[in-house]
């Protein structure tokens, strides 16, 4: 081969043009994706910690009880009866502070229609008013001689197992064994028979989670002290809270519902983009 050297740059030029258009873009995008991924996956989970104590004290001040009485008569008595003795809705004579705080602070009460399943809502009352209603119903229950469970406290999780100290791992195991069959392992909810919707746990505060475990808002079963110690309840609450606040590892968590939305994304976005690309690259005639 005794020919003059071929000018390489020239020979490449038409390919260069195609490559710049067809390959440069995707490569750049892969680069960006990998970089973003690196940032997302190395931003580790936030350290868990929701500091509170075992049981939250309920006010017994007459002023609070009186204010709560006024609010109750105005907003609750139409269904629960004057003095919470029950009417179209069940009596509240032994529910205890945990139930009242849970139902009112999650906006479930006051209910719009007595027939509907109580669902989460923007709370109707301020935290102070809620505390007053809790104080009133608690006073009624105590006077009736049947005080119910107090508002459970949630303590910060510890790194290692210890007495009086819940861990994320303990919460994880208890949650997967007792709650995941209804609320999904990622806490995103599901469905029960008879049309009951199982809510996502992502909006609940740690205290509300612990309350729900003790109270068991129907149709959810309640878990009394015989099933879980206070520490275990705190561990569950801490884990669930962590589940919904810790950043997702590996990127955007799509609805946290597992394979169904994943398949949807794979078909609609994954294959969808590639169909559009094929259409742009290929011919239409």
């Amino acid at each position, binding site marked *: 081969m005794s020919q003059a050297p*071929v000018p390489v740059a020239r*020979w490449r030029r*038409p*390919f260069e043009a*195609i*490559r710049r258009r*067809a*390959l440069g873009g*995707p490569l750049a995008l*892969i680069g960006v*994706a*990998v970089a973003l*991924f690196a940032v*997302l996956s190395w931003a580790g*989970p936030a350290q868990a910690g929701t500091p509170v104590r075992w049981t939250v004290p309920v006010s017994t001040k007459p002023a609070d009880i009186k204010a709560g009485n006024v609010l109750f008569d105005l907003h609750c008595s139409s269904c629960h009866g004057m003095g919470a003795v029950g009417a179209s809705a069940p009596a509240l004579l032994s529910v205890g502070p945990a139930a009242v705080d849970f139902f009112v602070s999650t906006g479930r009460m006051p209910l719009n229609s007595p027939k509907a399943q109580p669902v989460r809502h923007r709370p109707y009352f301020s935290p102070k008013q809620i505390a007053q209603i809790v104080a009133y119903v608690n006073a009624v229950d105590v006077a009736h001689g049947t005080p119910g469970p107090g508002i459970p406290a949630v303590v910060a999780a510890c790194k290692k197992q210890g007495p009086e100290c819940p861990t*994320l*791992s303990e919460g*994880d195991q208890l949650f*997967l*064994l007792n709650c*995941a*069959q209804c*609320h999904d*392992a*990622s806490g*995103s*909810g*599901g*469905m*029960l028979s*008879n*049309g009951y919707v199982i809510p996502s746990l992502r909006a609940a505060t740690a205290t509300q989670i612990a309350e729900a475990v003790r109270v068991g808002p129907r149709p959810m079963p309640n878990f009394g002290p015989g099933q879980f110690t206070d520490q275990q309840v705190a561990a569950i609450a801490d884990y669930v809270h*962590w589940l919904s606040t810790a950043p*997702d*590892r*590996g*990127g*955007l*968590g*799509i609805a946290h*519902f*597992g*394979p*169904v939305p*994943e*398949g*949807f994304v*794979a*078909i609609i*976005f*994954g*294959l969808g983009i*590639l169909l559009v*690309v*094929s259409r742009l*690259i*290929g*011919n*239409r*005639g």
Partner: protein
Amino acid sequence: MSTAAERSASRKRAERQEQVLDFVDDRLGSSRWIRSALDKIFPDHWSFMVGEVAMYCFVLLLVTGVYLALFYSPSSAVVTYHGSYAPLDGQKMTQAYESVINLSFNVRFGLLMRQAHHWAANIFLAAIAFHMCRVFFTGAFRRPREVNWIIGITLLLISMLEGFSGYSLPDDLLSGSGLRVVFSIVQSIPLIGPWLAFTVWGGPFPGSSAFLERLFVIHEFIFPLLLAGLLGAHLAILWHQKHTDFPGPGKTEKNIVGSRLWPQYAIKSQALLMFVAMVVFGLGGLVQINPIWIYGPFEAARSSAGTQPDWYVGWLDGAMRLWPHWEFRSFGHEIANPFFPGILLPGLVFTAIYAWPWIDKRLFSDYGGHNLLDRPRDKPLRTALGVAALIFFVDCTLASATDLIGNGLQVSFELLIEILQYGSFIGPAVGGIVTYRACLLLQRGGAHPIQRPVGGIIVRDAHGAYHTLGAAHEEHAPGGHGADNGHSNAEEAVLERVGADREEAEADRAVRTGPGHGAEPVQEERQSGGAEPAVDEQGDQGGHHRQG
């Protein structure tokens, strides 16, 4: 038009290619074959590229899968986790699960590779399904391509099994729940079921320690090898028989119009590979998939509400939910319920799909060979049946997501199941009838709703002059399509439109004088400004290669 400089550059390029071919020829004596291979013509309708999307997903699955296999351990020995993921600290788990957790959190690129692998698997199956629909609705499976249809369906089947075996490897809650369902399905097979399940699992569920190891060998070795072999055969047959094409100006049963393999088609195909990689790694890096650390290690006492299989197995899961609680007895044995939706249904479905080319021959009394495709409207019955089958599939898939749909729409679970039970009959029937009517209407209307020939076809004659064919005939002739003589009719319409004699003569000349087979390098073509279709001769009924 091209400048002198451009022309001389392209001549240089041609010379260089000749040099390379000479080099190969001197040593291996194969440049003739390579040249004809490089000149091979691929029709590049966009829908034909989706098969390639599947192929590239497979390549990416191999690459990412090998990376995962370097760190995965298929051992069911129980260990106590003390790694970096706090919620699992101190928990007992199998070594397999631990290795995938470490792969996700402690191995560089581990999570990216895991997620890319899983996204690639989901897209792989979606691309195969689309590819299969394309082949079905255009009649590309007809003689002489029945063998490739069989191979393609086998690829689909093995890919589904491959995906499911991969899903079961991490030994997390979803893996275990899925395997438990499959175990009970296998057990439900009359007579041999319990024995088979025990043999495969090596004991009662969850099986002996050998099971995970078997699964791993199957997933990373046996199935990929089978897939690679079948894919090779699939492509070799495609190469030998040449591609089908839609009828259109200048296209006949005996020629093939499109881009040459080198450089146009190869560049297109490489661009597609880049895009597939972009989507797979983009999703893998940005969107979470299968967060097994949240599901936790599998334990028989645990379950999770949203326990679903990956999408391509969802229709079987849905069929199990839709199947009523009937009892069947034969020879004094009760046939366990999962047998019907779990074994019988997929068995029947795949038998029907395998046999389809022969069913199709009977339905349309058409036993001949075809290189030109049907447009879906040309065979209303086939199209209607295909749409009905797809609706059935979607109905079953929705059934596997009833708890999520119910949660989203606040509708009761039982109501949804009942709707989908009726839907599995009514949906396909209504969809089929509507499709049938739509096909007939489209035939009468003439114009294709989305696809219209773009530009004309440029042919170079013996004197080097260029002529444009078909440019004046972009619209389909109205009323050209009769109601029931489908494909041949469509083809006649094209010939009418272009003028049969002229078209055939021109195409013929293009073949004979066709660029690229003689001394003239292909690159010369590009001077005329790019996407000029080349014409190649097509062997009779996929017979031998008469090119060059």
